[in-house]
């Protein structure tokens, strides 16, 4: 639905330069070589049904592409920029006339932050700590727009929040220890 709306809007004011100016990532997808979804983030509203369909269509489009081909796929009037890292495909969907090359850089920035956080990240890290990957993505993108260009800042913010969680956990366990001891 939103796709059609977006299309209508774009076609009605396509010569309008201003509409081109909005870079917006519609969604971020991560899937493996086998087409297994590892991360999805939707910045435009898609129903659960549409999401499944989008994922199926895109993995079908992207997975067969050879390594030498360009990293852009035209799909439903949008462009999907993808980049492969080992067994994982990182995809971002943007408007027809957005800057694809910049999206490639954003994907790389995300991967670098992940790499720094997990220490040479691999697919398994993203499977078992998928929520961490989401936290990192949320520090990088909001509303489909880039919020931070510094890897260091992102890493620092994530670390600060992780330590908050750790502190809370310790506190909780110490409290429960006290309770356990008190009820002995």
């Amino acid at each position, binding site marked *: 639905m939103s796709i059609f709306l977006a299309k209508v809007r774009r076609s009605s004011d396509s010569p309008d330069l201003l509409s081109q100016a909005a870079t917006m990532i519609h969604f971020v997808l991560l899937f493996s070589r086998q087409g297994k979804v590892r991360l999805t983030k939707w910045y435009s509203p898609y129903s659960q049904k549409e999401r499944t369909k989008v994922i199926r269509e895109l993995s079908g489009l992207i997975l067969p592409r050879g390594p030498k081909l360009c990293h852009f796929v035209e799909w439903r009037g949008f462009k999907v920029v993808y980049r492969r890292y080992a067994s994982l495909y990182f995809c971002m969907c943007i408007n027809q006339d957005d800057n694809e090359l910049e999206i490639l850089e954003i994907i790389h920035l995300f991967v670098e932050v992940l790499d720094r956080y997990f220490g040479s990240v691999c697919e398994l890290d993203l499977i078992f700590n998928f929520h961490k990957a989401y936290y990192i993505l949320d520090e990088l993108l909001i509303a489909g727009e880039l919020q*931070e260009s510094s890897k260091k800042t992102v890493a620092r913010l994530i670390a600060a929040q992780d330590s908050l969680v750790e502190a809370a956990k310790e506190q909780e366990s110490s409290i429960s220890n006290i309770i356990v001891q008190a009820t002995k």
Partner: protein
Amino acid sequence: MNPFSSGTRLRDMIRAIRACKTAAEERAVVRKESAAIRAAVGENDNDYRHRNLAKLMFIHMLGYPTHFGQMECLKLIASSGFPEKRIGYLGLMLLLDERQEVLMLVTNSLKQDLNHSNQYIVGLALCALGNICSAEMARDLAPEVERLLQFRDPNVRKKAALCSIRIIKKVPDLAENFVNPAAALLKEKHHGVLLTGLQLCTDLCKISEEALEYFRKKCTESVVKALKDVVNSPYAPEYDISGITDPFLHIRLLRFLRILGHGDADASDCMNDILAQVATKTESNKNAGNAILYECVETIMSIEDNSGLRVLAINILGRFLSNRDNNIRYVALNMLMRAITVDAQAVQRHRATILECVKDSDASIRKRALELLYLLVNESNVKSLTKELIEHLEVSEQEFKGDLTAKICSIVEKFSTEKIWYIDQMLKVLSEAGNFVKDDVWHALIVVISNASNLHGYTVRSLYKAVQTSGEQESLVRVAVWCIGEYGEMLVNSTGMLDIEEPITVTESDAVDVIEIALKHHTSDLTTQAMCLIALLKLSSRFPACSQRIKEIVVQNKGSLVLELQQRSIEFNYIIEKHQNIRSSLVERMPVLDEATYSGKRAGSLPATIPTSNGAAINLPNGVAKPTAAPLVDLLDLSSDDAPAPSSSGSDFLHDLLGVDLSPASSQSGNIQAQKSGTDVLLDLLSIGTPPAQSSSFSSDILSISQDNKTSSGNLLSSPSPQISSSAGGSPIMDLLDGFAPNPASSEVNGPAYPSVVAFESGSLKIEFNFSKPPGNPQTTTIQATFTNKSPNTFTDFIFQAAVPKFLQLHLDPASSNTLPESANGSITQDMRVTNSQHGKKSLDKSTISLVGCDTECSMMSGVAAVGTLSHWSNGISRMLHFAAFFLQFEGAVLVIMIIMGCNRSSGKQLARNEVETSNAK
């Protein structure tokens, strides 16, 4: 403790799911986990809530339903601790979207968190709000977000900026509140804030014209300065990407400048220098640099004209195009497409490279390149480009052939200057990728072939050769079948040889072979098979020697399960068997198809087609003078003009029936056309799906008789003598076919509104009808019949009678005299008024035949004066009027009975019915 709540750990669940070998196993594990989580939800279990939510998110990612977990997110968000909130917000963003009502319940928690003392909790709330907020939430929480744009920590400010973008997109009215705080963000040094602030300003400009004006006045210089700073900044490890400091910031600054400079000469002037610097100094070895150049070129193309900068930009694109990296080439093609409007000449210079890209192995690049190339074609390069593209068609991948074929056809139609070139190219395309060619393309080809009278022989021979090698291409086969049917004898006799041709020997039976193979080929569809049958019918007359064989082939389809084929087969068989004498005139060559009419029709009937094909249709290859009106109407001389008369709504049934006036017919047939909107004129001409082709051959038959009065049957009926009645009575359908001969030459006296018609003319009697309509009464038509006696005897006691179907009312005025002087010395006139009681309602198609008035007179009848079919062609629909004029002559008295038998447009079926009813009447 609840037995479920302990459950498994998240890690264990993921492991269990990963260990599943089949989808069914995975479903079982997920079902078990979901059940446990549901139970925990029911129990309102606090301890494991956040673990359960994490599991749900994983399950959700696998595509299983998780709606029962939505409330859990809200509960976690409402709890006080940071870890709970963190996972709660994550779940909220993953499991819900803006369209769910549940989301409204979180507004209050969000509001509290936006005011929280912990900046990380504020960050979480901003992030969630930015990603999924709805219009209502945006309204409720906009003041908080606006306030947070001035928050002390830059990391909150940047989140608030992006959150504001979402808010103003959802509720554009709020934009003005954000203009001032957004402008303040542009002064920041923190890259994250600057980045997001620029983005917010860009989006504000998009929404509000005032914001754009404001930023243009206040911020242009500072943005230019910011760009200068970042371009000239020393190495900054934190932001460095392949030697460039923060390309993301570069890009956003350039993008914002594009908005500011567009349509404003002063602002554009202000940024010229820095744009030139970026365009020349940026390192283009790495992707990051190219991304900046991309943005810079876009900006240069969009701001007010500066020729120096434009040259720089086009040169950058040229470099991109020759890059070995596919990504860069793709981007270059994309941008050259936009640059075409700015500087087409510069883009033309890269034509050869673009052509190479069409042949690339990468589908994305091919598609872009083809579209770009299509825009670059002009008169001077069309031949070489078409040649290259057609050559490539042979080797291209299947999926690409459709696109490529459509574009080649479009180019060929649009730019062809000579018919032979057009026909040659189209034949090549059809041979290579005929299955990808759209219907209107090969229809257009047939129209062109039909108009190129000097190329008929050449074309049919080329098609014959092509079909031998590429018989599997459906549309090639169709065109070939049509041409062989029309010009079969040119194929066998090698008439009209061009110098460039190699002579070939084709026998009559070879030509029939081609059609037979096409008819029986398993891939042939109904259209092709129907066309084959028509072609066979035509060949049966062109090649009398093969007639028996053709009959056998035709008969094989007599039992076809497809009604259309069955009907054609039976009808054609009947014609071959029983109507030897009229067959040749029946299957005359099609009159030249009118290009203007066809292209108009094509443009009209296909309003949704891509503009290129419309443009192409109008541009059909020229060279032959085009008849102005539809040719059949012209030849029958029933219409003086093809422009619809203003009184078309007040048209009368009978006029239409007689096909006297084109305007009512066109209004009528317009309706019919609308119903069968899918069909266009050529389909009708070719008789695909509907039988009008037959009628077209009938009309040509009439034409041929009227042009050439030596046809035996024409002579037979030219005088009212007794032996006619026997022959006519023996085969009424034949009479219908060939008895009536309106002489175009004699009927050329056109009234201003309705031309008159010679209803009957023989050696002794001429009957002419004049038509008029009383003003203000569209239902009524006055027909004035004028009778002239050409024989040497005076006719006395003249009586004229007429009968009409029941829904018409007929009023006969007395004749001006009952004596008809001899040797055309005078005439009798008699007025008839025909009133259509169901004017506008009664469909012409359904008007049934009535043979009233003839049964009692039958015995007295001394001759059938004329039984005929008036055919009238308009808007691709043929209407036929069957009428009989009975002529009695005894003892010097003359009695003429006109019987209007009905009008139809699907002549085939109607004719059969006529036959039946006539025999019943006997």
